[in-house]
């Protein structure tokens, strides 16, 4: 046996083979800062299990709606599907399901009793709220103090509403608060109360999560003009519908995402001309590529490789910005170190300047406490324990991490909660940040065998329409599109494992695999980084020596029984319909779509997973008739699946005939298309052709 080989005994000891998913993580999960079970929730969406999907997302990601809208989605950047055609639209799928479910449609995992220590969290952004949520789940009593009148931090106060509608954000806040997280908004620590006050009031720990709430400014002539706006303050004013003094010719200084937000917001406020000026070339700009594109579509002009040296003011009005040429932005070690050519200076006409050159922490919370800051004014902090310079005071989020996205702040907050818990229980704060290994990239010859399916497009609002309002710039995926998109997931890491003690090296897996993955040496070896989890080998292995990590076949008889029990038969024949996951549209739509009387619907990721035994077992479980609804040949996500299952149905029919049962009690039919609506009429028609009970 090799290291990592599995035996039937290992698996018998597991409550579910799904535990094996921890052996290796798919790249989407690995790359996700909170390590959400991406594959798991995508599969739940594919089967129409909206609530399960939402719960799986929220298990790791409290700001599910926020991330569904604005996440920088490293999951997608690392999706192995990009080696086949296009990465899965993971963010859009998340947005679809979490907003569909709302706060009520997600399970609240309240602590059995919430009677542990009180913990104060300063700042109700993604980091602070994530820390508070996890502490509440552990039974602590967190109170989050927020200087703004609303919770949510940057997403609530500065992210433009066209990217994140506030009613959507509120879903996350409501769901988090439902766990027993108390909010104290409109209360600024360091001003209305000090951290020392909080300790004196009985908060046994304090978590500082105040983020980077201030825009950096550049000292230069004219910088103090009232029409020179710090970007974050500008965005906050826009967010709260406060009046902003904006002219007709705006120059945004900066090339990051905040700069793009400011520029696009300025466009929406009706400014005549908006330009962005940055040190970087188009390729070097830190703003995401899609943000750049959308900005350009909205008529925003980019001026590259220029740095401002003076804001020109004449007769009290800004008339332009003097900018010098940039010769380089980064040094040889890719560190930010801009160099200029002072002989190349231009004047750019404008009447308003928005400074978006970076963010800084607002250290006001330190006031009145003995928290230490370093010589550059930063909070003294230990990254390993997340402790600040006072015992019991912790920090998380952007105030102590490099600037990042909401999901990274969530991860930092969650880690802080672990640290606080260890501290309050009197343990040494030692946190294991190690992760399971990441699954390898897909080999080229395997990628070629995966059927190409194009990514579902997101319907964007045309630029000429969207610049007029702060309404959403694109639409949420429709249900059918979400189902189609989720079924593109390749189930990375959920595939086959060989139980080496049972394998007879018979070569069957090698012969039935449509992707040519198994290799038989001493026993069969199935490379998990290549396996597409179709289940074909599992159903065909004569030794029962192959299992799937992501799908425990042992659960199927119980599922079949449960489906039979819940299908009302009213004296009719009891029918089990095994339905291909491609047609799962009806799966959890019981309330919405009509159910065919007496038919117990059992959805499978693909009917390729059904073995002859599974078909016979359905009869044993009480079915009088069994139907297999497969995709038509060529439409299944797995090559050859339809032909394989058709042969198994023929074989099972023969076995039934031997027993003396009518083989026509078992039928297979190929569904005409991928439209979920096909299931119901097909079932109705099929039921009519079955032998009478």
């Amino acid at each position, binding site marked *: 046996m090799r290291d990592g080989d599995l035996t039937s005994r290992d698996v018998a000891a597991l409550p579910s083979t799904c535990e094996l998913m921890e052996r290796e993580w798919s790249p989407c999960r690995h790359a996700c800062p909170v390590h959400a079970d991406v594959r798991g929730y995508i599969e739940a969406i594919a089967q129409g299990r909206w609530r399960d999907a939402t719960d799986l997302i929220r298990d790791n990601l409290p700001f599910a709606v926020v991330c569904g809208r604005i996440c920088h989605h490293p999951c997608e950047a690392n999706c192995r599907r990009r080696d086949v055609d296009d990465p899965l639209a993971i963010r859009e799928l998340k947005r679809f399901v979490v907003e569909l479910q709302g706060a009520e449609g997600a399970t609240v995992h309240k602590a059995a009793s919430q009677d542990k220590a009180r913990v104060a969290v300063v700042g109700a952004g993604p980091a602070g709220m994530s820390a508070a949520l996890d502490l509440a789940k552990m039974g602590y009593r967190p109170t989050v103090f927020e200087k703004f009148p609303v919770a949510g931090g940057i997403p609530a106060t500065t992210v433009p509403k066209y990217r994140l509608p506030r009613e959507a954000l509120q879903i996350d806040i409501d769901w988090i608060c439902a766990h027993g997280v108390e909010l104290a908004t409109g209360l600024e620590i360091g001003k209305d109360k000090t951290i020392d006050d909080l300790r004196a009031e009985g908060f046994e720990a304090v978590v500082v999560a105040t983020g980077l709430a201030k825009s950096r400014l550049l000292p230069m002539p004219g910088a103090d003009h009232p029409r020179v706006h710090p970007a974050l303050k500008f965005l906050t004013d826009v967010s709260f519908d406060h009046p902003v003094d904006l002219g007709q010719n705006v120059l945004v200084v900066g090339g990051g995402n905040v700069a793009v937000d400011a520029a696009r917001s300025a466009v929406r406020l009706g400014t005549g001309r908006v330009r962005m000026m940055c040190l970087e070339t188009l390729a070097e700009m830190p703003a995401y590529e899609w943000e750049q594109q959308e900005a350009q579509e909205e008529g925003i002009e980019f001026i590259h490789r220029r740095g401002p040296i003076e804001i020109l003011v004449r007769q009290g009005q800004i008339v332009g910005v003097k900018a010098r040429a940039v010769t380089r932005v980064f040094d040889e070690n890719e560190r930010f170190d801009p160099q200029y050519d002072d002989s190349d200076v231009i004047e750019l006409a404008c009447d308003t300047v928005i400074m978006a050159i970076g963010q800084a922490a607002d250290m006001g919370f330190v006031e009145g406490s003995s928290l230490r800051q370093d010589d550059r004014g930063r909070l003294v902090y230990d990254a390993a324990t997340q402790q600040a310079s006072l015992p019991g005071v912790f920090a998380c989020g952007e105030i102590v991490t490099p600037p990042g996205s909401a999901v990274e702040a969530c991860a930092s907050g969650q880690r802080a909660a672990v640290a606080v818990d260890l501290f309050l229980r009197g343990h040494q704060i030692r946190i294991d940040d190690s992760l399971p290994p990441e699954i390898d990239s897909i080999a080229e010859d395997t990628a070629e065998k995966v059927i190409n399916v194009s990514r579902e497009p997101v319907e964007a609002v045309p630029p000429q329409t969207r610049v007029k309002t702060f309404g959403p710039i694109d639409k949420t995926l429709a249900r059918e599109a979400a189902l189609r998109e989720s079924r593109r997931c390749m189930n990375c890491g959920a595939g086959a494992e060989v139980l080496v*003690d049972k394998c007879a090296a018979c070569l069957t897996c090698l*012969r039935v695999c449509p992707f040519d993955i198994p290799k038989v040496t001493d026993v069969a070896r199935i490379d998990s980084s290549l396996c597409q989890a179709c289940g074909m080998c599992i159903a065909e292995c*004569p030794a029962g020596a192959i299992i799937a990590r992501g799908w425990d076949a042992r659960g199927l008889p119980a599922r079949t029984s449960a489906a039979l029990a819940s299908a009302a038969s009213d004296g009719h024949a009891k029918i089990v319909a095994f339905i291909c996951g491609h047609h799962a549209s009806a799966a959890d739509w019981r309330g919405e779509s009509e159910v065919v009387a007496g038919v117990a619907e059992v959805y499978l990721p693909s009917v390729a997973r059904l073995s002859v035994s599974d078909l016979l*077992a359905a009869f044993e479980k009480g079915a009088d008739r069994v139907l297999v609804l497969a995709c038509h040949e060529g439409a299944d996500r797995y090559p050859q699946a339809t032909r394989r299952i058709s042969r198994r149905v023929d074989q099972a029919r023969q076995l039934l005939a031997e027993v003396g*049962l009518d083989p026509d009690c078992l039928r297979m039919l190929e569904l005409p298309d991928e439209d979920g609506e096909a299931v119901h009429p097909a079932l109705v028609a099929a039921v009519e052709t079955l032998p009478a009970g």
Partner: protein
Amino acid sequence: MIVAERKPFDEILEMLAPQKRVLVLACGGCVTVCLTGGEKQADELASQLRLAARQKGMDLTIESDSITRQCDREFIENLKADPGQYDAVLSMACGVGVGFMSELYPETPFLPTLNTTFYGANTAPGAWAEYCRGCGDCVLAWTGGICPVARCSKSLINGTCGGTNDGKCEVDQEMDCAWLLIYKRLKELGRLDEYRKIRPPRDHRTDRGRGVRRLVHEEMVELEEEESQA
């Protein structure tokens, strides 16, 4: 390897008729490889039997288990079920497994679910053909690797006979004449001299002529046994 095929279902049902509690026991050896007697096939048969019992109103409890090989005693340790606790065991092994397990469990009837058919090779996915009859006196060295014992209807060792007919055997027009195949192969190999030699009659004592055939590797006989004999 040993190739077997499943007996007709009715025959199996008939042989276990008086029993109430029956174990279907798969074998993880040759019969798994030829897709006849593995765990998957045992589950299918068990399922069929339970359905038949329900259909015919029989009082029959069917369970299933599997074992690495039914022809080695050590593997019985790995059984989850105890065959001794059943009225009968339906063995999915070849005849060797059925016979050997019957010796190990003298109190329990081991019933064959398969007909052991031949020693064969896997000629294509899902297909096996006979290549050897286990005669105990291998002649393949001078027949070009084609066995006349297994493949000639008369097991002749000096063929062909007069019944060869356009390359087919007189017994069955679908069956190739083994000796014509041997002739062609030897010709390809440039060894027709082997074909021209008249071979002495086969020694049937190596076949079934002297009862049960045995093999003992003296060097592997258990030390305790050797001591007790000394």
